[in-house]
């Protein structure tokens, strides 16, 4: 019997397989062939989206940040660095749209002790590479550094992001943000802010 709210192709095994195939492609990427290089116009458009995304996080405007994501989006923070299969490997977070919204709600309750006071961040994205996957789908890889300040002091997070972006009604949106901490498998401090 189908359970109310079931959405085929979203966080079922097919979806996991598809995301794994994308991640494997990113991990094995050597160079982006000219045939897969987006137009300068599209590249610039997706870069603008990433910079807005980073700025909204630093401003902690999380409703507007959520507004950059599609209805079938995912926020993925693996706990390994090898691209392990997420159906048998735990991540730090692997959130669907619903859990992304709940997470933002939690931070706003005034009782999220891990974020009182909130971690201040400066997100810097660099080494941006874009890959045309379909006319309305572009993948973006970029390195990130997140400078943070909290009661624990100043510290940095680093790694690379993989984005799946899709053009919906002429507007580029985020389908997947996979945050690959370069030390995801090593002990982590307070990452309860939004990376």
């Amino acid at each position: 019997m189908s359970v109310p709210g079931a959405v085929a192709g979203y966080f079922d095994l097919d979806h996991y397989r598809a995301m794994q195939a994308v991640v494997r492609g990113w991990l094995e990427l050597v160079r982006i062939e000219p045939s897969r290089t987006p137009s300068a116009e599209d590249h610039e458009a997706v870069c603008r989206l990433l910079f807005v995304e980073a700025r909204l996080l630093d401003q902690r405007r999380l409703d507007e940040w959520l507004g950059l994501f599609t209805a079938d989006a995912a926020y993925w923070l693996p706990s390994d660095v090898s691209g392990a299969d997420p159906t048998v490997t735990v991540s730090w977070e692997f959130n669907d749209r619903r859990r992304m919204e709940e997470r933002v709600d939690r931070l706003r309750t005034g009782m999220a002790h891990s974020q009182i006071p909130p971690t201040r961040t400066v997100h810097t994205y660099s080494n941006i590479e874009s890959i045309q996957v379909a006319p309305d789908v572009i993948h973006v890889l970029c390195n990130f550094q997140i400078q943070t300040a909290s009661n624990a002091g100043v510290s940095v997070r680093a790694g690379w992001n993989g984005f799946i972006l899709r053009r919906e009604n002429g507007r580029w949106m985020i389908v997947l943000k996979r945050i690959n901490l370069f030390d995801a498998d090593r002990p982590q401090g307070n990452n309860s802010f939004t990376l």
Partner: protein
Amino acid sequence: MSVSPLTYSYAAPEGRYAAYFKPGFVHRDLYVSETIFREELKTLFASTWVYVAHESEIPLPGDFVTRVIGRRPVIVVRDEAGGINVLLNRCTHRGATICREERGNATLFTCPYHAWSFTRRGACAAVPVRTGYGESVNLAAFNLGKAAAVDSYRGFIFATLTPRQPLIEHLAGAATMLDQWLDRNAGIKLQVRNGAMAFKLRTNWKCVYDNAADGYHVPFSHASMIRVIERRYGKGIDINYDGGVADASPLFVKNLGNGHTILDQRPEMHASSAWKRQHVLPGREILWSQLNDQLGEDSALALLNGSTGAGMNINIFPNLLIIGNQIQVIEPQSVNESVIRWYSTSLENVPPEINAIRMRMQEDFPSFGEVDDAANFEACQLGLEEIPEMEWVNVSRHMDTNQSQLDRDGYWREPISTDLHARAYWSAWRALMESAGAEDPGR
């Protein structure tokens, strides 16, 4: 067997650590003193059984993982006969750690410095140009140090540097609780090779341990999680219990002996369907639908109920904490730094949808709940460290309220909000430290 109501043995007037305890209170130095921390590493972690790994992590001959006993690096390796060896990861030559990988498969462990090599049982196999140690050198003199005893209980491997009692005696009432945790789906075996989250906390390891069967903090420390879930899905979901910390709650804490305890949430978590009660997770509806199609609704629900969070917080002193479906291990780093690793678990021979559900479920509490606990553990450390004028920590809850009872299984039980857990492990802590001859810390 029976564990009598706690005698609060730490309040006894004799003993080298007597000055750090009074009925219902423990002294701040136990959390902030470098001397005591070093004594714990040297004495406490060397004088009792310590959890090191799960057998499913090293299924084949030569499989190994590197772990710690306190801070001592050890290699947990399966030998060709299937036996498990816990080797001190220190070359008998100059002291270098030999194996520097987290896991792998090895025939020999060869020290990178001068290439001394050792078997899976720790025997010295070769040293280059051995005649430099004399013609009659006996390599057995160079064997690695090993744990004095290694034993496993239903897959959980423990090692001790000082054999004082058999593992089963040490586990006491915790063994039955592990059975119940493992036997939720009859005949389905547990696997512990599904990754882990390692949290780094600026706190003494006992601030983590203090919380392990603390049913009092839940509505407060986890207020953000509970509020979000209640707003979206109504009351009675996940750890939003009807009774809260009211003493009428059917939840309870039990002293299992030797410092081990359980906080038992099953009277509410598993009162009807734990799966239906569980906080929603990514893919919940579609994967449940697909399991219904594959197995039929009743079988699907039974399997889901049995692989949902156990509602059993089983705490095995000093370093193993079972929570939900995870195996949490405490690794002290320094007097005010700790690493806790949450090893994820899966089930053998179940539809892959079940394990996908388990993975997402095991991300739920860490990101919605554990982070707030961590903030509170760190705040405790700060207050304890920086205000020496305030000396005592209160662990007196339900000590004198006459709401405790000897349960039918012979173990002492108290209401959900008790500090019984803290009193129980502190008794074990003190007994180990004093009987094993930890030095007088000088208070």
